[in-house]
């Protein structure tokens, strides 16, 4: 891959939504998500000469972002036990694609409150539209574990949604 400065900026523009959104959905904090996304791209800049193709770049970015996020949360204070009651302000007013922006916001809060690995699995599944096999590769995780996380997380989300808001699913 080239280390041409203009090409690098183009690369960032091409993949910024993916990296930033992974961080934003994971952390529910735009400013922090941008910081982490920036770090990931700076790391990419140093790594670029050894990456062989666009696909390689994408896989590398997902892998590094996921592990940066896990590392970050390991050193953060423990999150509150009642994520709905103590949820931070919504990170984005984005409500495109859903008829119910409140529901979207709630779902983002709930996903951000999942355990780390489950959270990443859900983000890769529903943001990146990866299938379980690709998620397993991206996170270096057995496929059975990925499926287990998906099943459990969806079950938890349905449970929490129906308890909190009487949402029928």
């Amino acid at each position: 891959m080239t280390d041409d400065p203009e090409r690098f900026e183009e690369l960032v523009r091409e993949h910024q939504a993916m990296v930033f959104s992974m961080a934003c959905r994971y952390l529910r904090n735009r400013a922090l998500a941008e910081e982490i996304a920036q770090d990931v791209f700076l790391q990419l800049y140093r790594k670029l000469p050894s990456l062989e193709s666009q696909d390689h770049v994408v896989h590398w970015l997902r892998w590094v972002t996921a592990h940066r996020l896990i590392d970050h949360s390991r050193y953060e204070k423990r999150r509150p036990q009642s994520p709905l009651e103590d949820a931070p302000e919504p990170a984005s007013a984005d409500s495109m694609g859903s008829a119910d922006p409140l529901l979207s916001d709630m779902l983002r809060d709930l996903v951000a409150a999942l355990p780390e690995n489950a959270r990443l699995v859900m983000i890769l599944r529903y943001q990146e539209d990866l299938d379980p096999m690709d998620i397993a590769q991206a996170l270096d995780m057995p496929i059975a574990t990925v499926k287990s996380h998906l099943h459990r997380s969806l079950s938890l989300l349905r449970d929490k949604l129906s308890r909190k808001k009487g949402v029928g699913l």
Partner: protein
Amino acid sequence: MRRILWMLLIAAGTISQLPAQLRITGLDGLASKAKESVDITLDPAMLQMAGAFLAGSGKDGNDVKNLIAGLKAITVRSYEFKETGQYRMEDLEPIRAQLRTPGWSKIISSQSKEEISEIYMRSDQGKIAGFAIINAEPKELTVVAIEGAINLQDLSKLGGLGVPAIRVPGQAKDQGKDAGKKGKQE
């Protein structure tokens, strides 16, 4: 000396007949065929951690904490398939063979052509030592192994349904306070 040796042999024979903890085997490979699967194994250390974490976390958390207080292990293998024919009843044979050994008794059984629902209880020196649940349907297979003492009436309430009491040999019969109560299943 010979007498001591004979006594040791008899004791060894008796010990070897004691029912062992259920090992859920023979289901390898089902996870890759399933659209969704649950694979949970909680040993004594994990159960203790869970109990400590749940303490003081409200009524629901305390209910679960009380349920797991007497447990040594819980294992769940649950698979949901898109299509039928992803497993055979023979796949359950290694598990059901263990449940036919002394110490295990079947307390609930419902079988049809396509489905099996069975609950087994293990007893050890007259005390309840564990349960096993097998639920096999065309597109779903679940096996649960519980080691330790658990109150099935309390467990059934966790499912959200107010079903009539289950009479378990050795446990006091429920007076039917929940009989007829219907709840919303989660």
